[in-house]
């Protein structure tokens, strides 16, 4: 390979221009944004020669950088409200973010339990919120181009603080809705600081209409104090034409219990990145996912679990069902640092290919530097088991029903880790809805 002079793509040029024109109006410390943008500009959009983006070539997928969405007016909010369907039946404190901007009109902030602090990220940045020092707490995420772009452009979102010892019963629902007819981009950042001994359930839903070519780039960052407990459920039900990039980072203290699950049924192209770092001993993390793909959807799940300290346990379970010509990607990596003895890490990615033209790329990776650990990874990939189908059909089930039943069972394994029953049922409904639409 000869040295190739890298030409900037229209999207890269577009992003640079957008930054120049927006940087005066974005809230908070400009130098942080400039550093991130410089980092991004140096490397450009990641492409398939960049190992972490081997299967999701953003240079090819992101053809044009859409302008960032303006704060919507009340008429637009009313339209947007119609798209917000996820978790609606559930009792929760809600914060609604429309086109990347907090819509207080549509939020049920009064429902936030006593002591829980919620501020919009826009204000937090503008006023220099005391907790902003926690942004970027997970080092591994910082050099990531998607994360860098978010840092450069983040306009709104939320800063949430769960004070020490507070057990928040009702889930906090972060409701992201995209609405409009012209292509636009958003960059939101949510920081959740869960202090010592506190517990909370955070729900995230991302929705939008089909036909809207939006480009959301969402980052949620968890900073979890010792003995705290966090449950996080994320649902990507974006419209068919969205290109959705998202990042979750979590820095876990000692004796923490942290669970996160990402369910994807929407977006043309999606990439969900998870960066979890164990910073205290005896903590446990579960990172699960269920991806339901059809048409020409492309869904990438990229995980990095960093066991930096001893005595921690991590489990990753991803279930991917791929129909039509869709593509599923799982890239997981567990790092066990030299002193992280007694680490217990287990990673598994299972994929079912329902159509001849479906594609699955699995890359479950281990990087181990400690000798007294138990780490395992597994990956499977194949079609529905003929024998199981035959068994069900011999019991009188029609083919379609038999398939649905098996798929439900397959996906159920990932979803069943959600303990909150109402949330669990809501996810099962998503799965069932997807299966029904198959036939």
């Amino acid at each position, binding site marked *: *390979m*000869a*040295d190739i002079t890298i030409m900037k793509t229209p999207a890269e040029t577009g992003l640079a221009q957008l930054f120049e024109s927006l940087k005066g109006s974005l809230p908070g410390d400009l130098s942080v944004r400039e550093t991130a943008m410089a980092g991004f500009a140096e490397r450009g959009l990641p492409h398939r020669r960049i*190992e972490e983006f081997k299967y999701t070539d953003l240079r090819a997928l992101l053809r044009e950088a859409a302008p960032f969405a303006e704060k919507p007016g009340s008429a637009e909010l009313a339209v947007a409200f119609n798209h917000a369907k996820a978790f609606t039946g559930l009792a929760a404190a809600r914060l609604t973010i429309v086109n990347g901007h907090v819509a207080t009109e549509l939020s049920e902030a009064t429902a936030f339990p006593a002591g829980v602090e919620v501020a919009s990220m826009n204000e937090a940045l503008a006023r220099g919120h005391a907790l902003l020092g926690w942004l970027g707490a997970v080092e591994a995420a910082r050099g990531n181009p998607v994360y860098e772009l978010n840092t450069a452009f983040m306009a709104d979102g939320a800063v949430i603080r769960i004070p020490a010892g507070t057990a928040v019963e009702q889930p906090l629902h972060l409701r992201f809705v995209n609405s409009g007819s012209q292509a636009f981009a958003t960059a939101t950042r949510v920081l959740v600081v869960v202090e010592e001994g506190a517990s909370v359930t955070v729900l995230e839903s991302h929705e939008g209409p089909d036909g809207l070519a939006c480009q959301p780039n969402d980052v949620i960052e968890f900073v979890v104090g010792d003995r705290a407990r966090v449950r996080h459920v994320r649902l990507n039900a974006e419209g068919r034409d969205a290109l959705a990039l998202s990042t979750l980072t979590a820095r876990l203290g000692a004796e923490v219990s942290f669970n996160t699950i990402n369910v994807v049924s929407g977006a043309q192209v999606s990439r969900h990145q998870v960066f979890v770092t164990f910073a205290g001993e005896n903590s446990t993390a579960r990172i699960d996912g269920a991806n339901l793909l059809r048409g020409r959807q492309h869904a990438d799940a990229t995980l990095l679990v960093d066991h930096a300290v001893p005595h921690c346990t991590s489990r990753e379970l991803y279930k991917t069902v791929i129909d039509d010509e869709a593509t599923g990607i799982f890239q997981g990596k567990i790092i066990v640092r*030299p*002193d992280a*003895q007694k680490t217990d*890490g287990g990673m598994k990615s299972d*994929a079912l*290919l*329902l*159509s*001849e*033209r*479906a*594609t*699955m*790329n*699995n*890359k*479950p*990776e*281990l*990087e*181990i*530097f*400690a*000798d*007294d*650990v*138990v*780490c*395992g*990874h*597994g*990956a*499977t*990939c*194949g*079609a529905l088991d003929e024998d199981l189908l035959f068994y069900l059909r011999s019991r009188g089930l029609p083919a379609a029903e038999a398939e649905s039943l098996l798929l439900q069972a397959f996906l159920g394994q990932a979803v069943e880790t959600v303990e909150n029953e109402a949330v669990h049922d809501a996810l099962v409904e998503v799965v069932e809805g997807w299966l029904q639409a198959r036939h």
Partner: protein
Amino acid sequence: MPAVQETIDRVKLIDVDQYKYGFETTIEMEKAPKGLSEDIVRFISKKKDEPEWMTEWRLDAYRRWLTMREPRWARVQYPPIDYDELYYYAAPKGMTGPTSIDELDPEILKTYEKLGIPLREVEMLEGIQRPNVAVDAVFDSVSVATTFKAELAKAGVIFMPISEAIREHPELVRKYLGSVVPVTDNFFATLNSAVFSDGSFVYVPPGVRCPMELSTYFRINERNTGQFERTLIIADKGSYVSYLEGCTAPRRDENQLHAAVVELIALDDAEIKYSTVQNWYPGDSEGKGGIFNFVTKRGDCRGRNSVITWTQVETGSAITWKYPSCILRGDGSRGEFYSIAISNGRQQVDSGTKMIHLGKNTTSRVISKGIAAGKSDNTYRGLVSAHRRATGARNFTNCDSLLIGNQCGAHTVPYLESNNSTAVFEHEATTSKISEDQMFYCMQRGLGEEEAVALIVNGFVKDVLQQLPMEFAVEAQKLISISLEGSVG
């Protein structure tokens, strides 16, 4: 779980400072001038008395190589190689190809005796139990002896140094050379295509089961040289051949480059078994010296129901960069990869396989065991892919690693790419595969838990080692008692 004591002791026995083959042979050598240029490529080609097309082939490769960059994606670190400081051709004086054993320089003969490689046919016939092995001995850049050629010829098997094959069977060489590993495949393969000096050529005619094991023994002796051998094995329809390869080098403070290319072609119903015991000098415990082993090995299951099996035991080399692969082109073909890689001292291993399923109902199996000790790094990197048309493809991969001590690293980088819904891929780690039933059975027979695990896992490792032909059994024995208890993913 940490490694058990028995394993630790075993690995120590083959630690870098225990290297037995580090002696040097003093012999007058003839070398090409230092460095690499078109003239050097022509020089090598002329030395080998090659036809014009071969010279052009090499020159073409050389020109392409000039435009390529060294790959840096592997998990290995080494100082930049100065390709102009190397000698690309070194041969014992007056030798351009194999002569009769009697004419062979006694020093060379002694070298091979010391290494335990019999070059005299009579000696080999003495033992009744021992089956015959035909040996091609490659000393730096030339093949110095090939045994049992006549007997093999009776069966129609062609076994000779590749330089000889280029002259004697140009039609075969021209047809197959570079057809599995194209000239521009990668940096090191292209370099090899330009300057390869010797190696073995095997052709097994249709329906012939090769009457004995074939083997090549590679020895690097000269200072500052690189060894670039090229092996080409063709198993015609319905034939079978088992080929062994061994390698050693003297103990030296400088790094030496070994960039080989191996191409295997199996036609309809043919089977090739390729085994390697790689024991190049690994460098000392501080990481000084040692061989850089950058090797491209690939087999093409071109015909229906053909089989290619790679078995490797890797204990040597300062750096190993090698991915013996199978292209499963023919319907119903099968590829297998069995590997045990042990790294000690400051060795770095980045090895694995590629199983590329193109044909229908193709199957592959990958069993890899990596053991890292000292300050070494051991990486398994493997690709399994199924093409759109590869209906019914099946793969099972199992890769375990074991760490001994807390200054080494074991890494696993598997890639599984499926483009076909009927392809079934499974990738798992053994530790999770020991069933409770097996454990229960062993333990109710009075075995302790640890013993039970050791028994079950050892049984599994032996499975891998049994893939090695008997000739390597002795070397393999050393490894057999390595328990993989405490292995991780």
